[in-house]
């Protein structure tokens, strides 16, 4: 894999196909935790970490256990037709389990190591589990397996995509939080105060991000 390719994967999920603004992934925390820049940043950091870890772990599981190809460990152990070991229908259930466990770990670690952040994120930390951005990145990573020449290339692509998507999510969150902080002391028409105006803001942000369209 060349550096350009890596850059393209990264830049694609970072800005061009931003998870939040172009792919509609991770909207719940995007609207829920973007009221304060500080919270948005810590939430973003948590998401980056979990996404990266999820990409790492799911890449391993996918390559060695689920895919029906010569790399499958069961096939190596037992032989026969590699396609017979194709367990890809288990994607959803396995991935979500992995993510749930990961989030649980992060939650416990945060509670111990940084109670203020834990309190700031409040109910949204468990919601990382149900943050579709994370399952989404794991599922989208599957596409790399088809074209990848070997495990390490596949893994690298997954990690880059996970990192890029996480940072892209954080960027969108930060921009959103800045705008929402300002909107709080602006006399927005009453019916639009709060969430509705945030949607409009997200819409115009998506519009602005279209400037990156077909860049690569």
């Amino acid at each position, binding site marked *: 894999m060349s550096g350009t390719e890596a850059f393209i994967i990264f830049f694609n999920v970072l800005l061009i196909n931003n998870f939040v603004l172009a792919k509609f992934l991770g909207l719940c925390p995007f609207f829920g935790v973007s009221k304060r820049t500080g919270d948005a940043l810590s939430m973003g950091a948590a998401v980056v970490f979990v996404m990266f870890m999820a990409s790492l772990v799911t890449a391993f599981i996918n390559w060695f256990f689920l895919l029906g190809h010569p790399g499958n460990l069961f096939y190596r152990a037992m032989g026969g037709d590699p396609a017979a070991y194709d367990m890809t229908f288990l994607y959803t259930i396995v991935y979500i389990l992995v993510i749930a466990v990961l989030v649980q770990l992060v939650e416990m670690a945060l509670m111990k190591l940084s109670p203020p952040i834990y309190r700031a994120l409040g109910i949204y930390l468990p919601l990382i589990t149900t943050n579709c951005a994370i399952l989404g990145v794991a599922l989208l990573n599957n596409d790399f397996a088809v074209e990848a020449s070997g495990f390490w290339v596949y893994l690298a692509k997954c990690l880059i995509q996970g990192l890029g998507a996480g940072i892209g999510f954080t960027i969108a969150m930060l921009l959103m939080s800045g*705008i929402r902080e*300002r909107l709080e002391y*602006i006399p927005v028409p009453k019916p639009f105060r709060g969430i509705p105006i945030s949607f409009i803001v997200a819409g*115009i942000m998506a*519009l602005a991000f279209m400037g990156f369209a077909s*860049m690569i």
Partner: protein
Amino acid sequence: MAQLIVSNSPHLRTEEDIRSIMWTVVMMLIPAGLMGAVVFGWYAAFVTALSVVTAAATEYVCQKVRRIPVTLGDGSAVLAGLLFAYVMPPNMPWYVAVIGASAAILIGKQIFGGLGCNIWNPALVGRAVVGAAYASATFLSKWPIIRNAAASSAGGGWFSDRLAAIKSSFANLAANINVDAVTQASPLYAVKTAAREGFTAHGVEINGNLISNLPPGTTVSDIVHKCDISYMNLFTGHQVGCIGETSAGLLLLGGIILIFLKIVDWRIPFVYILTVAALSWVLPLGECGWFAGDPLFSVLSGGLMIGAFFMATDMVTSPLTPKGKVIFALGCGILTVIIRYYGGYPEGVCYSILLMNTAVPLIDRFCRPKKFGEVKA
């Protein structure tokens, strides 16, 4: 003695108010618009007027619906409508002008609460809405030809050029009726395409010139010349482009007057244009290598002048502090060049300013002014 008035200090106010600021900016924009009408024909003037009227009407309706005082007199709606028209192609259909201008006011401004509340420049929001709404429509990619551009530049002096242009503007009115038939590439698009494909054997045809088999080491300036683009025409406005952004010279003049009147901060246009010039020289465009760009062409072409002097400097949507303004302008410049060089659109001013508008609250947050008596840590 009649009852006296008591208010909190201060009891003196400066003369300048929102109204004077907005109308001055409108005045400074008018010459460039007149130039657009002259170059593109009366239809351009018509859609500009239509945009302005629609913007004002939308503002009026919104404020009536919200039962708040109508503030059409301050000129901000007129300004938004005018700027919106200026960054649209001269051959946009009338309904696009209506939809775009009303979107500019509605979701660009009034939905946030009106003047001062918006996060993005309303005119650019209108432009981006149209860009997304009619992405595949022809009027955004094909431009009406300026009939005498090549012909008149050959003979006579500058004055006769302009005279011919004015004469031809009447003819352009007719040209607008069937605009898809005769089209011309905008300078930015021409140069970008030529730089990308001109090095191949089959080449690319730009405005009737086949550009192919360019030798390695060709600079952007060479391509500009090959495309028959004259810097003088870019400066005076005799170029293909949007209604109000053609005449770099008139916009520069208006902008400088605004800076002189202290209505806009000099930092934003200065840093913005400088960044674009520097980066467009450094970064490789198409097959042209590093340090082969053409700063002068980049600065004069497209919407950079109107963007730098009239859009990015919009008070409501630019940062508060000088430091923030510099960062903002720097970001605009970088994004503009990146989108122009590597993006899907030939022009990046609109999106780069919108993107940086998005970041303004964050910039403001991290660029607080230096407080008097603050202990330097």
